């Protein structure tokens, strides 16, 4: 009768905490033994993780899951997805229900420490914004004093919103609805003056759910920093390293201009950096506990970071987000891979 995700989440924690004792350092072995990666993703966020027309999961977050599977198994398809609500995601990872959480999750101090998680490296640098009706003619977030704001519960968004209005001595009324679709329809029907969420999500909602996307504007200011990063359980550095370097490999490939199409050619290159990355020179794979061709497989099957970005949220998608902060550091962005040597 009752739909209480929090209860389910707690039952999940309690249940699995009891079921299996913690085994630090063994996630990679466990994943190899069962033959697939159990990856926690969003219930459906266009561009980040949503099933496509054929029912296959696709998106920027999904590509992180696929990259890790490619590194471990040499096969990006060996992933099972667990769609999670905002409230379920942390308990699902804490309890061992999933091996990796790639679900547009903001890297915060509390989550990194008290909640027993470890974040690898941001996969998307985002910020919280506001979408309003064009008819209101608003130019700035500062004009929202007294507004009713629709917001999802159980996210950093809710707190950022309160902080922002408090800091600017403005007032607002929150309308907090748990399901994305209900929240968005309340907003589009005019229950709220503004919808607040990560700017990338607002773009996704506008592209996917507004009857006429032209009628809605996303205000220019962002009121928070939302570095979205995959997370793993604390206490297993080998597994955290594997996820982190799988991400770095994608960024590094973009820095080096290696794409899914050119990777076979690049493996023949005399460049020692590329030879190390692509496993022509052995060593990296052994250090990480996976096959030497781990990075080769990631790039061949998933692509480099730029390819993943453009395909899912950039110019080849409906979201049409610009690279912005997510451009390579050489282009004025924040994407910077540590040297894979």
């Amino acid at each position: 009768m009752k739909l209480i995700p929090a209860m389910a989440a707690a039952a999940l924690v309690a249940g699995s905490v009891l079921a299996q004792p913690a085994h630090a350092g063994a996630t990679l072995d466990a994943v190899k033994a069962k033959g697939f990666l159990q990856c926690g993703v969003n219930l459906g966020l266009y561009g980040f993780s949503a099933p496509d027309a054929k029912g296959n999961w696709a998106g920027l977050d999904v590509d992180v899951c696929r990259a890790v599977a490619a590194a471990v198994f040499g096969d990006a398809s060996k992933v099972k997805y667990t769609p999670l609500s905002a409230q379920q995601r942390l308990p699902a990872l804490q309890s061992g229900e999933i091996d990796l959480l790639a679900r547009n999750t903001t890297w915060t101090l509390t989550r990194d420490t008290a909640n027993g998680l470890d974040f690898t490296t941001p996969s998307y640098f985002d910020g919280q914004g506001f979408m309003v009706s064009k008819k209101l003619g608003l130019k700035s977030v500062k004009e929202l004093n007294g507004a009713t704001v629709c917001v999802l519960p159980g996210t950093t968004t809710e707190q950022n919103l309160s902080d922002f209005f408090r800091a600017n001595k403005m007032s607002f009324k929150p309308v907090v609805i748990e399901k994305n679709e209900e929240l968005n329809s309340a907003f589009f029907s005019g229950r709220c003056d503004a919808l607040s969420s990560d700017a990338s999500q607002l773009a996704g909602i506008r592209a996917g759910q507004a009857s006429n996307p032209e009628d809605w504007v996303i205000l220019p200011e962002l009121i928070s920093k939302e570095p979205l990063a995959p997370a793993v359980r604390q206490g297993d550095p080998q597994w955290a390293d594997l996820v982190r370097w799988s991400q770095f490999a994608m960024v590094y490939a973009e820095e080096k201009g290696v794409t899914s199409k050119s990777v076979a050619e690049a493996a023949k290159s005399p460049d020692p950096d590329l030879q190390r990355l692509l496993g022509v020179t052995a060593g990296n794979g052994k250090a990480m506990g996976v096959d030497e061709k781990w990075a080769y497989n990631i790039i061949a099957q998933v692509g480099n970071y730029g390819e993943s970005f453009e395909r899912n949220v950039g110019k080849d998608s409906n979201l049409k987000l610009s690279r912005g902060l997510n451009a390579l550091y050489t282009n004025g962005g924040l994407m910077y891979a540590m040297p894979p040597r």
Partner: protein
Amino acid sequence: MGGLAGLWGSRRFRGLVYQALVIGGVIAVGGWLVRNTLTNLELRGIATGFGFLGREAGFDISESLIPYTPADTYARALLVGLLNTLLISALGIVFATLIGTAVGVMRLSGNWLMARLCGVYVEAVRNVPLLLQLFVWYGLVTTLPGARQALNPLPGVFLSNRGLVIPGLDWSGGGWPVLDLPRLAGFNFTGGLTLSPEFAALLAGLTVYTAAFIAEIVRAGILSVPKGQVEAARALGLSKGQTLRLVVLPQALRVIVPPLTSQYLNVTKNSPLAIAIGYPDLVAVSNTAINQTGQAVESVALVMGVFLCISLGLSALMNWYNKRVALVSK
């Protein structure tokens, strides 16, 4: 015969031993569950305990019976949620009882149209999940015109998708209250009293849904009173209304009260569906608290404890009332 064997022969003693074993077993399993959970939470580096209740909540709540700001603690935020839960449950119970009783009585009335209409209402509402009904109610209230095009049926009364706004009394001046008329300022109405769309939708949903069940309980209760009683009352010259009020309902109540209790409990227990349409009840607030603190086990335990207390209290009250209306054979 040894004393022990003799004792074992006693049925009473054996009963006590078995009961002690069962209680001991339950306590041992419970203790093991708690210990195991705590150990594993610690192993995984997850903070435990209720210390978070004293920390600043940092999120706002749209409606509250007591003063609340984001600078208040999690404990106070949860209290705001609890009061909202109690408010919606209490009002839901009152309205569902009134409507349910009326519908139950009308379904038995001689008026064919009235009886059929009530029958259709009961069958339609009872057989559709409450969650879907809530979405319909919420959909209805949010399709009302916007704040600037609000319907204004009476001076000072505005109906829009921001809710129903009516004039209120301002006591802040001290002494005599001043009439506080709502007016449109910026995005919203200020002043007066506001009935939010979320509150209205949830109250309507809970009331209409539960009233259908109560109507059936009332109808069954009335039908349980032998026909002879009604005929005797009519023969004594009591009017139809008097017969219902003085003869039928008092006798029907003893059949009605026990199942009514479980309907009242259902109103309380269905109120967390509020989360689906954005009314900040206890579960909705604790949901946010869980996500901000990550302490799911504690928060859910707290919510479960609170609901248990509300339900047990309510059923104790109804049991006491049931004793009073029950027939005492002399």
